[in-house]
């Protein structure tokens, strides 16, 4: 499992990017993280939802109860305008960081 510190710092970036294209609910987000990281990263309930609520408080994502026909109502999260700005900034930061790390440690691009 990935180091807890790394995971914490990147969690926000992950969630923001996952709701960039369309609104998703909590379980969907956690499944996506698991599959796209090929099992490396896993968020359980206790970690995911507090994070979602924090992002919502800051106004970067917006949660809304939506009822689709034939289903129970679920809470969907989508990216807000403010969130979009933050996402772009965080992406840049992350890219610069990775590039710098590579140069220092002599890692090659995977």
């Amino acid at each position, binding site marked *: 499992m990935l180091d807890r510190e790394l995971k914490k710092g990147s969690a926000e970036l992950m969630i923001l990017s996952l709701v960039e294209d369309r609104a998703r609910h909590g379980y969907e987000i956690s499944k996506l993280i698991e599959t796209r990281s090929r099992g490396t990263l896993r968020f359980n309930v206790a970690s995911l*939802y507090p994070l979602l609520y924090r992002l919502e408080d800051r106004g970067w994502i917006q949660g809304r109860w939506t009822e689709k026909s034939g289903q129970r109502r679920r809470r969907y999260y989508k990216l807000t305008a403010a969130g979009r700005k933050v996402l772009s900034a965080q992406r840049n930061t992350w890219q610069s960081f990775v590039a710098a790390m590579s140069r220092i440690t002599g890692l090659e691009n995977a």
Partner: protein
Amino acid sequence: MPDFRDEIRRKLAPLRLEATREAAIVEELGQHLDDRYAELKTRGTPEQQASAAVLAELEERDLLATRLRKLERQPRFDPVPAGGPWHGGLLQHLGQDLRYALRSLRRSPGFAAVAILSLALGIGANTAIFQLLNAVRLRSLPVRNPEELVYLKPSNSHGRSGNFRGNFPIFTNLIWEQIRDHQQAFSGIAAWNSTSFNLATGGRSRIAKGMYVSGDFFNALGILPAAGRLISVADDTKGCGLPGAVISFPFWQREYGGNASAIGSKLTLDGHPAEIIGVTPPGFFGLEVGMSFDVAAPICSEALIDGEWKNIDRRDGWWLAIIARLKPGWTAEKATAQLESISPGIFQATLPERYKEKEAKEFLGWKLAAYPASAGLSNLREEYEQPLWMLLAIAGTVLLIACANLANLMFARANAREREIAVRLALGASRSRLLQQLMMESLLVAAVGALAGVALAQILTRVLVSFLTTSGGKISLDLAVDWRVLGFSGLVAVITCLFFGLTPAMKATATPPIVAMKAGVRGAIGGRERLGIRRVLVVAQVALSMVLLVAAFLFVRSFQKLVTVDAGFRQTGILVADLDFTQLKMPVEMRNTFKQQLADRVQALPGVESAAAVNIVPVSGNGWNDSVHTNASGEELQEVAWFNRVSPGFFKTMGTPILRGRDVSNSDTLSSPAVAVVNETFVRKLFKDKDPLGQTFKVDEGATKPESVYQVVGVVKDTKYRTLRDELTPIAFVPRGQDKQPDTYCSIVMRSDLPLDSLTTAVEHALAEINPSILIRFTVLKTQIRDTLVRERLMASLSGFFGVLAAVLTTIGLYGLISYMALRRRNEIGIRMALGADRMRVLTLVMREAIELLGIGLVAGAALSWWASRTARSMLFGVKNTDPTIFGAAVALLAIVALTASFVPAQRASHLDPLEALREE
């Protein structure tokens, strides 16, 4: 599928979240766990294992609760679920209501500004007056345990004759000593007298406020020195000379910069050196509220300082007041009983020799009594207490009128929010909850208004005090804001809030929701009932304004009459110089000539039209009276007449015409027959229609001396003697040169057109040439007279201001109401106009409502004014409290102003386009 929600709830329980919030989280997380479980089951995991795995996600070291706790600590702002039960306690709702009220007020800044400003002014004015009343009447003395203090007074004295000095000339020194030695009710007893000391040694006087105090004065009051020591019993012994003087803290700061070197340095009191032995603590001003003192000396020193004129041994020298501290367990009643029992002995031992039989009998029958004195004694209080209470009543009425306007505004606001309130009621909101929210707005406005009012009051109080301050001296009052003042303004704020907030709010929440939602801009049918209250409010406003206007007119007229009253002498252009030549140590037989010399010297100055010496300056508050009798008219007539001793030229200087006979002259000396010039009232009362010239009258000189006989040589026009308010009394003017016992004081009145400064300098120089040790004090007669009218001026100005303010507020109220009523009847007016009614008719229609309200209000107001004006009777001068012209003027003014105010909306209504009015629904 197992239900994970219970488990989630259990985890969230310690967070004590709000019900809705918890439910939402539980639902969301519950779904997540259900999905997880479903996924595991699809993969083939057995039920129990799957359940365990899912629950394990929750278990992880209670992370869920911990993390959520950090987030959920910020209160989530949920809209109040309409009709929700009382969750979370009173305070939470209070905070919500406060925020709601703030938002609501911020959306209508105009209303908020008007409301807060009106309240600030109204509450401020009331608080200012109350603060003054508090300082003058209610506040306790800054001494130890003031509630134990009483002052002594004969309970049954009807006046006495003799020599009076000071502000409270209740006892003589001998009576004081007797009481001190024979009382049993008090653990401490002290006497004092207020006086003034001239600190100068020559030339321009430097007057300091002084006190004579008995030895135990400071000890009995529990006063400790700020520096040095205070006068003690050892200092106050007969024949003590001048062992030392105590100065007050402010005096110490002012004159010595608070320097310790002041102790032990010397002061001059009326020419006698005194050593400063100590300083009283800051905050101690003596026992008379409104006064202060600079220097205090022991009572025994009066003998030295006043010299020839000492009062201390005179059996009829009244100058001391007595204060005492009750022994533990004693009450004022018990003390009075004890004092009554020792009274006969005391008065027997102190009977003045010169009292004749009748007066002596009365004196011997006096009984001493003790009265509560926790608030000290005060002449200021006597003079101003009644006017201040009256002003408070007036200011309170103005506040009521302003509140009526606010109530009308609140009604209008409530009307506008009818729909919103109706919807919420329909959705199940509790009425009391809504009421609380609406009241919160009123409470907020009242609270802010009150705070601003208290701040404003500090300024207003100072303005009021400066108003009352005369050239004679500053008024010293402790104007600090104490619990009484805050309590008062708090109470006023609450009452006003209830008054203008509660009724509209209750009415607003009482409308059945369905009715409110159907109504148009006119407002609900229930509005008719609301309109009834608004009408009553306006009528009340008119009535109260009428009362205030009548009061204002009465006081203004009274003041005007007083200022223009014929005093019998000319008030302008006269300078008075009070001279004291005690230090010259002139023998008695030379004094009369010397005084004439002084007057002549001043008269000779260039620019001085006329000058004369006089004993008692007119309208200075001083006086000298004696009992006179004569049977010149055939019957024996007796009156109390007032006397004055004047030099030739006095009447010319004062501009009082001599009607018959002659002025006093320099040939009226001690070796010629005693003569007098009398005034018209004297003639009328004592000589009836007999020609007074050449007639004689006798003056009662007491039991020990023969009567004096005077011959009338002239008659002058009536003049005012002690105050402008006095009735005209018999006055006899006797010649300067025939004074058998001249003292070392002399006042010179002079008439001149010179500017004040150059005149005073010239006089000073001229008198210094005669002798530089003469002490001089200048007063302008006009200023001195004006100072005696402060009370009347206060009432006139303030009642006038409040009266106008009340009229303005009422006008606004009437305007608002008529506008609203016209608006309500738009449809009706439109129909009428469509059916052919012309502008005039519409105008009349609307105005009729206004006239109705005005009429009822004026009638009620007139009745109320008639009843209320009786309380002011004693404060009026030259005008009756039922004066019909004043009532008429008030009615006229109010009617004109109010009708103009209602004319505007009526005019607007009559210019209505009928189609517009009908279209609107």
